[in-house]
């Protein structure tokens, strides 16, 4: 029961924050709303007993990435951006499209029987090593190659962004 209440609180935070992120005019407000949304997701992770993801979500997303966002926002001229005409004015079309896609998904999940599943059987309590150890085990054993290749992905992204950002001679 308590779990359910917490779930709805976190879900509300996540969705409310996400909606505020895209509707606020000021970039600063958007960024702060995004933090709320990410916090809600972190809470959902905790409810799923994924402590590691919870910690990473807080430290990396809210701690690291959001600070970076805020830096960027402070560097650009905010007043100017707030006054300017927003790029995309297709409010109505966007709303109709998302309602349609949403309805389609609900219909599909419903006819797939996902929405009316019997009450979930609680996952067996983890035996043996904890969450983080299990993750490390998977990451460095089974998923060693993707883990290593992801570093190449990051390298390419860094090289690309530096190239795009550096001053032209």
């Amino acid at each position: 029961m308590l779990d359910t209440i917490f779930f709805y609180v976190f879900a509300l935070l996540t969705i409310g924050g996400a909606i505020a992120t895209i509707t606020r005019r000021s970039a600063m407000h958007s960024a702060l709303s995004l933090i709320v949304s990410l916090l809600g997701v972190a809470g959902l992770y905790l409810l799923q007993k994924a402590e590691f993801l919870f910690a990473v979500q807080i430290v990396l997303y809210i701690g690291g990435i959001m600070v970076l966002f805020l830096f960027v926002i402070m560097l650009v001229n905010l007043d100017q951006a707030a006054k300017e005409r927003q790029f995309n004015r297709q409010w109505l079309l966007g709303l109709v499209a998302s309602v349609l896609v949403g309805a389609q998904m609900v219909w599909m999940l419903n006819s797939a029987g996902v929405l009316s599943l019997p009450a979930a059987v609680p996952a067996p309590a983890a035996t043996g090593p904890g969450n983080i150890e299990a993750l490390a085990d998977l990451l460095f054993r089974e998923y060693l190659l993707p883990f290593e290749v992801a570093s190449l992905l990051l390298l390419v992204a860094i090289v690309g962004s530096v190239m795009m950002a550096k001053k032209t001679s």
Partner: protein
Amino acid sequence: MLVNFTPPSASEYIRVLPEILLTVGGTILMIAEGLAGERHRRGLAPMALAFLLLALGGAVVAGMDPGPAFNNMLTVDGYATFFRLLVLIVGILSVLISGSYLTRENADSADYYALILFSLCGQSILASANELIMVFIGLEISSIATYVLAGFLRNDKRNNEAAIKYFLLGSFATAFLLYGVGWIYGVTGTTNLQEIHRFLTSSESVYSPLLVSACAAMMFVGFAFKVSAAPFQGWAPDVYQGAPAPVSAFMTAAPKAAAFAVFLRVYSIAFSGLTERWQPILWVSAMATMVIGNFAALRQDNIKRMLAYSSVAHAGYVMVAVVAHSEAGVAAAMFYLASYAFMNLGAFAIVTHYVGKGERYVGIDDMAGYARQQPLIAALFTWFLLSLIGVPLTGGFFGKFYVFKSAIDSNLIWLTVLGLLNSAVAAYYYLRIIVVMYFHEPTNETGAAGPVPAGVRLALIGSAIGVFVLGVMPSAVLEFANRSAMLSR
């Protein structure tokens, strides 16, 4: 816990040799530029070429000892080796035409070559990926590198437009793909292609076909974007037209071939049990891609934009082979992509040279009398255009022949008829260039009558030989394709 840990064996490392060589090569290139300084920039292209040749050798060595690598993350089979070799050859030809272009634009830089190498590394991973996680990472490495390459000349507005369009839409498409992968994991509990196949075809597993179809559909959005298949082809003309010409040449051949490779692998292994659900959708997409590409190309005046639309149309022909969903279809797609890579690179190499400094706008009528100024180059251009039409004795002919043959074998009569009608339409806009080059009086003195740089010349000869070999002796390549077309489930 570590008792049962076995480190990867040496043969597993050899199976990822091309990826290792490309990554090391790209990194060394970036360091070398810093160490050698500005004056030695001319050495960068040969260095990149050397690494590409090494990787080509690596791919051959890796292909001699087929098998899975790193817990089934990759599988190096004949199919993977075919596409690895194909993208590496495209890489070599693109580097050959890039050198003089970058010097002309005063933009020589190791980053350019490093990004080409990294992008090829991603495509090489895609060619051998056997796991949706590797598919995603490989696709992203390849795409991010090409986003940057598309906007490489930052002072050029067209470059900027191409890069931002490609980047925004591409990220959106990849998000769809990733969402599909997430759902697949939710339904089947695995991301390994064979295991997904096993789960979906086993009578014991409980799942909703509707949900799996939704996954397949979302992944289709991602793949269709990367191969520029309708209705996700909208970005292609703007990006191919706006990007630097050698990059367009690269983009229309290598990333597209790799994306098709993984598209085919995922759909013919993981989703092979759901054929009757995805085949109609792909049928419509193949038809629309051919029609949109060809009819839009008819109306183009700019030669680069016309080639961009033609690239969309050719993706449509390969889609026909995907719809066929048979081993013959897979082999036909492999052959088609190889022949398309050569003829398209050849055509783009000439455009790269012809546009001159600052990439002026070249309309089709500007080619008037080109045959008189540069008879040899015009003859080669004609050769590539004939191959793009699909005239016998060229690689393009056998490509189309095998594609439509596989479609007929799979009872796709209407699609074949539509495809053939489309090829006839396509002949018009390719022939128009040939007519203008040979039978129109030169109107103005064009700046591109200058000598052709050695790199471009080499690339032209290489592509022309490729088109010729595939057109006259297709059996060697086709046999290899046929042998590798049986993807292990």
